[in-house]
């Protein structure tokens, strides 16, 4: 699992039936790399979230027939920008 921050909602009207009507969010990792995650919890822009990848993402979506490789598993109560970025440095300030 990984920590991402929600950037915004993503609208994709034209999609495969296997994505159903699930909500999608643009999320970024601590390096600013953008990805798209399926969101069964209702996260808002700015929220720090736990994301689940690979085939586990499909079970996290609540139905293994959903074709996703990244699903939001929960919203983190307390997390800071500083703590997030410190995963990159040799001397994390935790």
């Amino acid at each position, binding site marked *: 699992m990984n920590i991402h921050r929600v*950037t*915004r909602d993503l*609208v*994709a009207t034209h999609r495969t039936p296997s994505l159903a009507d699930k909500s*999608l969010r643009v999320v970024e990792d601590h390096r600013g790399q953008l990805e798209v*995650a399926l969101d069964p919890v209702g996260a808002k822009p700015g929220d720090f979230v736990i994301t689940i990848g690979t085939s586990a993402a*499909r079970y996290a979506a609540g139905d293994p027939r959903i074709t996703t*490789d990244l699903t939001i598993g929960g919203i983190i109560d307390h997390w800071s*920008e500083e703590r997030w970025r410190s995963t*990159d440095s040799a001397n994390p300030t935790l």
Partner: protein
Amino acid sequence: MKIFRVEGTLVATARIGGLESHRLLVVQERSGGKQVAVDPVGCKPGDWVIACGSSAARDAAGSKEYPSDLTIVGIIDYWDDELEERAAVSARNGARSTGDDARR
């Protein structure tokens, strides 16, 4: 799922039997890297799309046996890459500038 821009169709006449039945597209990541994706959705060149990997790529292409590791699952309605870049940068600066501009 990752965000890509569709560059165009890829023609590969001699291909394994399992790869038949869907178009192959050359897609480009925002960072510039090119990959090949299976397209069951029907995209045009220039479309911004989302594509998934892992076992979902096989299922999204139609069956568990389909040998794909990157399949397009949707077309993004609105995506302005420059706007996204600027929004991300301003969100980052607004939150806190740590001085480590090591992203990409």
